[in-house]
């Protein structure tokens, strides 16, 4: 197989319905915003550019380099796309990449695609671009260093969020999944950082006009700095908490009701399954779930429509 699945592409069945739908909603909002922003600032010329850039990320994931023991380092590309193309375009590019990986190659599921896009496209863009933006007018050395750190941190944060999603869905135990995922991605992240820095250095040498500080500043405002720094801080703070004292995090999540909500109806109904007249409740839960899903879907369609209308008017 040309494209070996990475551990970040969650397949269908591994996340609970509630977690999948919540991340679909968040992803739809962010992607909708990204569409209206890119339409406003750059117009239709941006679309072929982003399409070809998405194909570039896909092809660049094929460039591997031998690491010890027959394994090889791969490239994810979310941070690089956000730094060079700007955060909104980066989000759209990564959305297209993850969508095609899931649809065409079954590398990641369909119902959980919202979570996959959020982890690999949106989170990496916020951290990658947000941190880079803090030093976008500094000297080359500092910028490259920060972009390397940002690429590493983005990979780690994506792995962390994926493991938290698996935990809240009741698929994995927190004390196992977080250290395992972070452990694997420490190395993947270092490869990612070196490739990102080397690619940026190369681009800067050949086409310095693509990476000027004005261009970076115009593609994303100062609020990206705050978002990037805050999200990075949260990721850095949660990681040791989750791997060193998982009980603490589990306790917090239970207190706030995350766990019950995330694991959904099946978890609460199954233990009582022997009560004879409970069929009624079970069926009503299914219908409630279906109605909820329909309402959510309707809201998303409405949101998509209103955004589309806005983007059409802004083109003219």
């Amino acid at each position, binding site marked *: 197989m040309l494209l070996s699945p990475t551990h970040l*592409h969650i397949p*269908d*069945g591994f996340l609970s319905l509630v977690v*999948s739908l919540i991340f679909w909603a968040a992803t739809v909002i962010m992607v909708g915003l990204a569409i209206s922003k890119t339409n406003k600032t750059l117009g239709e010329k941006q679309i072929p550019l982003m399409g*070809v850039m998405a*194909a570039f990320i896909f092809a660049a994931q094929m460039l591997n380099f031998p690491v010890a023991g027959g394994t090889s380092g791969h490239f994810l590309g979310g941070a690089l796309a956000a730094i060079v193309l700007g955060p909104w375009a980066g989000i759209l590019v990564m959305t297209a990449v993850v969508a095609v990986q899931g649809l065409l190659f079954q590398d990641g*599921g369909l119902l959980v695609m919202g979570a996959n896009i959020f982890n690999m496209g949106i989170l990496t863009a916020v951290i990658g671009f947000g941190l880079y933006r803090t030093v976008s007018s500094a000297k080359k050395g500092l910028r490259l260093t920060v972009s390397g750190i940002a690429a590493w941190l983005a990979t780690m944060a994506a792995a962390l969020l994926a493991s938290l999603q698996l935990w809240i869905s009741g698929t994995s135990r927190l004390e196992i999944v977080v250290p395992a995922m972070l452990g694997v991605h420490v190395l993947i992240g270092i490869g990612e950082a070196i490739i990102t820095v080397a690619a940026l250095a190369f*681009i800067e040498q050949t086409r310095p006009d693509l990476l000027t500080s004005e261009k970076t500043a115009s593609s994303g405002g100062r609020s990206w700095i705050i978002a990037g720094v805050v999200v990075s801080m949260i990721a850095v703070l949660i990681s040791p908490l989750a791997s060193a004292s998982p009980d603490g995090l589990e306790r917090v999540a239970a207190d706030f009701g995350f766990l019950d909500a995330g694991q959904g109806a099946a978890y609460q109904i199954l233990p009582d399954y022997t009560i004879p007249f409970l069929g009624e409740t*079970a069926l009503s839960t299914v219908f409630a779930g279906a109605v909820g899903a329909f309402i959510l879907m309707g809201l998303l369609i409405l949101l998509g429509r209103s*955004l589309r209308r806005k983007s059409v008017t802004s083109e003219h």
Partner: protein
Amino acid sequence: MHYHAFDHYHAQESRIHHLDPRVKVLLTIGFILSNALLPDGSWLAFAAAWLLLLWANDQTRLGLGYTFRRSFVALPFAIAAVSAIFSPLGQPLAEWNLGFITLIPTDFGVVRFFSILARSWLSVQMAILLVATTQFPDLIHAFEHLKTPRTLTTIIAFLYRYLFVLTDEAYRLLRARSARSAGLPGKHRGGSLFWRAKVTGSMAGQLFLRSYERSDRIYNAMLARGYSGHIRTLNPHTMQRSDWLMLILSVLLLLFIQIIGWYR
């Protein structure tokens, strides 16, 4: 061209191939949603879903086991669910002492683990069937009909169109690197790991610039040919009566599976 590695469409004359792509997309998502809604341990319902899948497989004339052979893509991810076996909820089944840690599998945990595997295995097969019976441009068109923003579907269409081209470009870069990396057998060749990653990074930068400049030329060429912001298609995609029939029948079957799952 390495297009066959990307094109998962299998041409065939069958009822499923001729089905409207919207119906196929909706039914695939419906099937995956139905699996997600089924409670843990409803084996009868999972079996019914599998029968539905086999029936669909049979209808496509690709053979009963067509999706089975490709269904193990998602299996490596099952490692992530292994820890569910040792869920503290439920009755302990055994106690394994590994010296540094004691593992206690529980009945609840085992049921949960195999339910996750069943859901994932069934869902991925339906997704495989979808791309095997639908051409990718039709698939994109279906998503456009289902109100996916046009900007996104157009980006995806471009991605698909230039995937082959840029992959070839990437292969050329890789071939050039191997051609320049000759070494004596048994002897260490190339530099340190850091150096290797740096070379790969330069290749990624090179590929980026080639793609970037190519996209400029593509845009100008498209403008010259009358591009107006979105890609047009000649296929009208209208829902026939057979499409509606298939949609309703399948939704009823999925509801039936849900009833089996919840009433047993």
